[in-house]
């Protein structure tokens, strides 16, 4: 059956957009063909630096003829209805057939030739393609990712004729810009196309380009006894930058190897898109790089290697400059000053303010995770400093990591040991060097975990800083109502909360969420307080002091607050300018005091509950991902506990218990008991007064009474020890008596005292079990 080949040939498509473009092209083509009634045998798309290609196998030369039956108006319907129907069907009344009192129209639709449908499809695809960013060019009205140059479109070896905004369809493609004859060529089917591209030095399939790159890299490495540092993201990118990818090995000045390896790799990757290489079997980097050229040069890539080596040297010289500057004494204090000029978020102030908040918070958290308060405050104070360093300004992804290196450098610790030899001072001696190592790690690891596969921090000090950092983020963004909605989570709050949860759980930290949240809120409020107090203490003549104080918060913060407070007198608010004339610090202090972000927001009664519920949702997702039963998580959550470690221990014990016979039966007993109770409570019964053992109690009543007397204190003791497995075992002791009671005792006795006492007994069972979990939420 005939084949369709479409190539949309353009100027260079950004590498990061190619994979999605191939997927979108495939989806759109499938939809259009399906809508036309075609079911192709095979459909495949390709994307590369200059082309999107679609090949469809097994299309008929025309649509099948179709018969359509249309139901018209009833016999005797008003004439307007008949006229409308005839117009729609394009028939006259004598062509209709009467069936069961209804006029029917039988229309024969001749299938249209496939090329017509293809032409429409291509036009719709080209005009409707959703590039992340598109543009116009020259005088053309079309939008494409970069100028669209040609459209090759052949069906069944014939050109499908059409024209879109002046671009005529053709059977012409082009190969590599520089290699081969660099002349356009004609093709009439996919085989000719694939051969033509190959002859003209273009690898069509991205997977083949990737394989070619890896293969080339490995060959180069093998010859020099090197090993490629694999980087899948980079591989994907460079495979989108070259039509004839050709790895070339270049030399790097070995003197750069004393820079941290992350710096070298990041510089290579971000700026130059080079692969790093290692010496076979060694940890550190080797003094070489691999660039992926788009050309197989006549000189074997000598000129290319030399040129790239020169560029890399310049790049690494820049990195070396940053490194040397950043390592100078006093650098941290200089960066801390700069943080007051960095806006964290318009409503949440500057990065300097944020640091103030997390320092206070880390001080609160430290003792609860076994970290030293002083060290926690110091590490937190410095944790964000590297954001203002030269290196992190250049490579934001090195945040934290550079802070750790710089702190170590400032404290005379080894920074880079290319041979992998560690000369760390011995731990456990409590000396200054040891403290410096711990603080440096806390600075370096406080962003962890950065994703589900990233490890959580484990050293107590790192845990304290990491928790403070994330809790402040969460509390802050909830305060200003920037919660994640649906798929939108611009501040990665889900990741932050999951980070808090994992850090707590994996380290077994006992930090109940309510107290953690309120500590973060307190830190936020405390940071707001001094500014207000200071402002209030100024008089109207102290303009510059007031101004300096306000700017500590950042202009964006002031603008946001001014908008909210309506206080603009004395301040000239222009969309892009914030100019002061004279204003009253006192009036500002008052306005700020009334509109403090943290205080104002967290005075709302449900704000903390909202954040707590957000945590609960994340925990449920995490536990479900770990295979825990959804209903058990709910059953434990319903107790209102906010200690994550305890919650998980309960869920685990409950899960194990319900897998035993005792567990299953007790659950069934619970359900029966609570149904009875529910029915009676609806009628107004309430457990009041003491439960006792009536004189003429039956044996099952007496047995359950005794069992409860034994179980209740034992249960309480187990729960007090947080021995949930033990608590479940105690509950197991109720199983027999509960079953016997439910089977042998008529609860709703006509004797009021009996009925009341029996209900109380059941309520006692429910209450006892309810201390472990809300069994009413357990399925089964």
């Amino acid at each position: 059956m005939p084949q369709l080949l479409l190539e949309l040939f353009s100027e260079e498509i950004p590498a990061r957009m190619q994979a999605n473009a191939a997927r979108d092209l495939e989806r759109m083509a499938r939809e259009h063909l399906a809508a036309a009634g075609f079911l192709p045998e095979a459909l495949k798309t390709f994307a590369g630096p200059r082309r999107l290609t679609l090949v469809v196998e097994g299309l008929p030369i025309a649509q099948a003829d179709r018969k359509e039956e249309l139901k018209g108006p009833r016999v005797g319907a008003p004439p307007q209805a008949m006229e409308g129907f005839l117009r729609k069907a394009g028939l006259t009344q004598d062509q209709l057939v009467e069936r069961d009192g209804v006029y029917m129209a039988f229309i024969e639709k001749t299938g249209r030739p496939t090329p017509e449908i293809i032409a429409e499809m291509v036009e719709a695809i080209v005009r409707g393609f959703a590039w992340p960013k598109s543009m116009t060019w020259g005088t053309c009205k079309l939008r494409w990712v970069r100028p669209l140059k040609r459209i090759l479109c052949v069906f069944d070896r014939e050109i499908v004729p059409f024209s879109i905004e002046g671009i005529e369809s053709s059977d012409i493609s082009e190969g590599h810009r520089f290699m081969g004859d660099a002349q356009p060529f004609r093709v009439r089917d996919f085989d000719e196309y694939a051969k033509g591209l190959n002859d003209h030095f273009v690898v069509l399939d991205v997977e083949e380009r990737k394989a070619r790159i890896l293969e080339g890299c490995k060959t180069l490495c093998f010859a020099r006894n090197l090993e490629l540092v694999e980087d899948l993201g980079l591989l994907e990118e460079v495979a989108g930058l070259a039509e004839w990818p050709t790895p070339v090995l270049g030399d790097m000045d070995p003197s750069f190897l004393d820079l941290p390896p992350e710096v070298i790799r990041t510089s290579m990757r971000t700026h130059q898109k080079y692969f790093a290489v290692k010496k076979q079997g060694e940890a550190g980097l080797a003094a070489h790089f691999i660039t992926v050229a788009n050309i197989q040069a006549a000189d074997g890539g000598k000129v290319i290697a030399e040129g790239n080596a020169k560029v890399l040297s310049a790049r690494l010289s820049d990195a070396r400059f940053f490194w040397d500057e950043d390592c100078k004494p006093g650098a941290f204090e200089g960066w801390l000053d700069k943080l007051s000029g960095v806006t964290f978020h318009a409503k949440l102030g500057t990065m300097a303010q944020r640091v103030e908040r997390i320092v206070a918070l880390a001080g609160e958290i430290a003792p609860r995770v076994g970290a030293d308060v002083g060290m926690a405050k110091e590490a937190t104070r410095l944790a964000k400093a590297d954001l203002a360093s030269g290196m992190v300004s250049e490579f934001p992804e090195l945040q934290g990591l550079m802070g750790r290196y710089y702190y170590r450098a400032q404290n005379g610790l080894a920074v880079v040991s290319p041979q992998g030899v560690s000369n760390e001072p011995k731990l456990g001696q409590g000396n200054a060097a040891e403290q410096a190592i711990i603080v440096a790690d806390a600075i370096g690891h406080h962003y962890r975990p950065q994703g589900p596969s990233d490890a959580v921090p484990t050293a107590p000090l790192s845990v304290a800083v990491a928790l403070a950092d994330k809790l402040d983020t969460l509390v802050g963004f909830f305060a200003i109502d920037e919660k994640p909605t649906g798929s939108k989570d611009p501040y990665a709050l889900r990741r932050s909360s999951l980070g808090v949860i994992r850090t707590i759980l994996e380290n077994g930290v006992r930090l109940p969420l309510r107290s953690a949240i309120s500590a973060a809120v307190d830190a936020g409020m405390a940071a707001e307080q001094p500014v207000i107090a200071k402002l209030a203490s100024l008089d109207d003549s102290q303009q510059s002091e007031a101004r300096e104080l306000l700017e500590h918060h950042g202009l964006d913060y002031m603008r946001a607050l001014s908008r909210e407070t309506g206080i603009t007198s004395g301040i000239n608010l222009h969309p892009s300018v914030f100019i002061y004339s004279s204003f009253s610090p006192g009036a500002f202090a008052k306005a700020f005091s009334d509109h403090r972000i943290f205080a104002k927001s967290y005075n709302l009664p449900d704000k903390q509950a909202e954040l707590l519920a957000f945590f609960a949702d994340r925990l449920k997702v995490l536990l479900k991902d770990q295979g825990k039963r959804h209903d058990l998580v709910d059953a434990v959550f319903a107790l209102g506990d906010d200690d994550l470690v305890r919650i998980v221990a309960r869920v685990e014990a409950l899960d194990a218990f319900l897998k035993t016979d005792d567990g299953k039966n007790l659950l069934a007993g619970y359900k029966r008991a609570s149904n009875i109770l529910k029915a009676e409570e609806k009628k107004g019964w309430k457990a009041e007064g003491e439960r006792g053992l009536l004189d003429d109690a039956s044996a099952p009543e007496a047995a359950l009474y005794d069992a409860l007397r034994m179980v209740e204190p034992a249960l309480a003791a187990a729960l007090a020890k947080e021995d949930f497995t033990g608590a479940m075992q105690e509950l197991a002791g109720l199983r027999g008596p509960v079953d016997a009671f439910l089977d042998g005792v008529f609860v709703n006795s006509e004797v009021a005292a009996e009925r009341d006492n029996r209900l109380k007994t059941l309520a006692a069972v429910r209450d006892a079990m309810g201390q472990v979990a809300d069994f009413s939420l357990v399925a089964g």
Partner: protein
Amino acid sequence: MSRPKPTSFQALILTLHNYWSEHGCAILQPHDIEVGAGTLHPATVLRALGPKPWNAAYVQPSRRPGDGRYGENPNRLQHYYQYQVILKPNPPNMQDLYLGSLEAIGLDLRLHDIRFVEDDWENPTVGAWGLGWEVWCDGMEVSQYTYFQQVGGLDVSPVAGELTYGLERLAMYVFGVDNVYDLPFNDPDSPLGAMTYGDVFLENERQHSEANFHGYDVAVLKGQFEDMERQVPLMLARDYQGKSLVLPAYDMVLKASHLFNLMNARGAIAVAERASYIGRIRDLCKMCASEWVKQQEAA
């Protein structure tokens, strides 16, 4: 059209002039006001706007006061040259024309690795953006290639294609020189004596670096900035034969922009103030751009 390959900085410029002249461009001279980038020349910013075709090429000195290194850094200058080409509407073969210019200056495209790497250009100071690429030669960015989509906050239609060559960097690469000051400025075999880039510009870099970082009086700069800021609306409000004085107004914007760069280099602008200064300049520029378009469309 085959000429001998250039062997000096000035020959490189002459080669580009010849090349773009032969391809129909008007060869202009630099604008006589300090600018931070060749794009800011009115021949680009203003001429990109409006319906009329415009094809021009020129060299423009770029002033980046903060990049001064007292002549001690082999790659960084506070005053350097950009070669600027603007083609409106961009011709369909603009990429080929560009590659032809690289060949003209002596790059063998079968020996070097030329790549078009995504780079979405924007200049917030003039409210402009476009899509295009950095052009890499053996891993080094040798040009910026942009299809202007907006300038001064206004749509560019027809679309203008812009090429910017960093001349010193390109020359260093073509001539295999590692230090900008060693570039041959005139013919190395000149009977009147060879001159290097350093002979011409080293002292200039030294003195201007000192002036940029320490010399200028901040209060004076600030006053001048505000003077320029005031001049713009005055020029735009002034009627001359039924039109406002948009060209002089735009010159005032350029001066304000350079004064801002000088204040910035002097460290006189707090981080928090930066954005608002840029916003002020952008607003002035937008006023000029929309006024210019109005005049172009009326003409």
